[in-house]
């Protein structure tokens, strides 16, 4: 039942990791290693009826941002990325990926040390030096061949190791999924990446490369999910937790409450309801902040709506264009153009 892979040339799980860590760029956010918020990671555990979880209090805002990003990807990022994938030979693609990945290893080394993983820090330093010299400025990943495997560390993970709580799940415009903890994490990661200082064209190539590498993961999400928003959120948060724990699984944590116990779930719901109404009485002053947040959400929903209108127009234009193109081609030769089949 796990859709573990378009195993032919690439594995979606890996891509998922890639997509997610990058997902889109500022990346580095983190979930949690704290037992206290372990309950929050899945809606399954919190058992909220609507499938939302405590970790996602701004779901309405996040959903509109998610839609916005999705449209942006459909109409701008994906076409460019597809073209890039189509025209660029394989060795060049992997060269570009290796080059940017090597520059990111500087940040990995910094975070290794900040998390107290000194052994791994030395290994990753060796990795960076090897690839930068023997690997011709990072174009070839020689270090992996030598057994120095890539590690994934970022400042969001470091903050988690230091005990900073995860905070709310957020979807940022263009940058994608993150958490409250991931925002400062992402800022640090950008600052620690040399790519950030060399100007727009290089940044654009880096972004394009990121998007192109995420193609498999995005396709996988599209194929496997019945609610892409929830799928992305849960996969993102779980993968972050996995990275923070460096892949260690705790068999004593019930990952799946398979023996669902109706009575206890009903009790739990009643308790939450009671707690909520009590909190409601107490925190009427907090309502003001809630209201201003609501306003922000409404504004963003409006923005998202106008974006969708623009998208519909684009759709129409696209159809017109393809029809005309089809006619022209048909006049030239009797076969339908491949691109529009």
């Amino acid at each position, binding site marked *: *039942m796990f859709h573990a892979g378009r*195993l032919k040339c690439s594995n979606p799980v890996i891509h998922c990791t890639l997509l997610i860590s990058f997902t889109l760029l500022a990346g580095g956010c983190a979930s949690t290693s704290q037992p206290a918020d372990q309950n929050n990671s899945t809606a399954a555990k919190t058992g*909220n009826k609507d499938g939302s979880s405590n970790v996602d209090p701004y779901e309405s805002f996040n959903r509109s941002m998610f839609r916005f990003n999705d449209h942006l990807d459909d109409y701008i990022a994906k076409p460019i990325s597809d073209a890039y994938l189509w025209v660029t030979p394989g060795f060049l693609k992997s060269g570009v990926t290796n080059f940017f990945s090597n520059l990111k290893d500087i940040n990995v080394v910094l975070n290794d040390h900040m998390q107290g993983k000194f052994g791994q820090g030395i290994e990753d330093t060796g990795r960076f030096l090897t690839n930068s010299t023997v690997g011709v400025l990072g174009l070839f990943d020689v270090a992996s061949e030598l057994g120095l495997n890539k590690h994934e560390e970022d400042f969001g993970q470091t903050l988690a190791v230091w005990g900073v709580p995860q905070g709310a799940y957020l979807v940022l415009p263009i940058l994608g999924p993150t958490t409250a903890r991931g925002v400062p994490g992402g800022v640090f990661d950008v600052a620690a990446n040399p790519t950030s200082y060399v100007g727009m064209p290089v940044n654009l190539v880096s972004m394009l490369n990121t998007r192109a590498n995420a193609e498999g993961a995005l396709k996988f999400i599209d194929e496997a999910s019945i*609610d892409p928003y929830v799928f992305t959120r849960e996969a993102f948060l779980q993968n972050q937790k996995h990275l923070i724990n460096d892949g260690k699984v705790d068999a004593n944590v019930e990952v*799946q409450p398979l023996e669902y116990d109706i009575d206890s779930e*009903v009790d739990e719901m009643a308790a939450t309801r009671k707690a909520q109404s009590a909190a409601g009485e107490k925190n009427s002053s907090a309502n003001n902040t809630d209201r201003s947040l609501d306003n922000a959400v409404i504004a963003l929903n409006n923005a998202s709506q106008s974006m969708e209108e623009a998208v519909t127009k684009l759709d129409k234009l696209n159809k017109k264009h393809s029809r005309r193109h089809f006619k022209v081609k048909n006049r030239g030769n009797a076969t339908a153009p491949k691109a529009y089949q």
Partner: protein
Amino acid sequence: MLNKMLFSFVLLLCFTFSPLTFADEISARQVVEDFQNELLAIMKEGKALGFKGRYDKLDVAVKKSHDLPKIARSVVGKQWEELSAEQQAKLEQVFSQLSVSAYAHNFKDYSGEIFTFISEEEASRGGQVIHTNLHIPGERDVKFDYWMKKKADDWRINNIIADGVSDFALKRSEYASVLSKEGFDALIAKITEKIDKYAAQ
């Protein structure tokens, strides 16, 4: 003479203990490894089989090793009890189709993949976790953790966690979201749409 005696003794031992060996249950690890081997075998002839061929073979392999009815009912959590018997049967049926289709779609051919056993450990509530590794040539390894529970006397796969991402938790969150926002019929429609898409590709 001594040799002969020894031989008959060994033979006797064999006979005495063979019923025990036969009655011995198949371990959780064995269930996982058998399934992985069957999966690899199907991948190797994946192209020749086509989607339908892979589906038919996987249908047997998956149902034998996974506890699909249990996963289907717990994936919707307490809402299971609110469904009519007919709806429950429908959900079980499409869920099982979806699971097999996803395998048939995602494991369509073979390019040197290898599963290796890493370790096994006791999990909470009498379960077991089998840790394995999937090696794909030219790619980073993927960790597959199988969460096993006993169904009657047989170990069955209840969940698979790939690189820390739990298939069950993903589905449970998604299904809860769709059920609460759009209801049961929409959930079935969406799952059916996925099944059709898997089959079409």
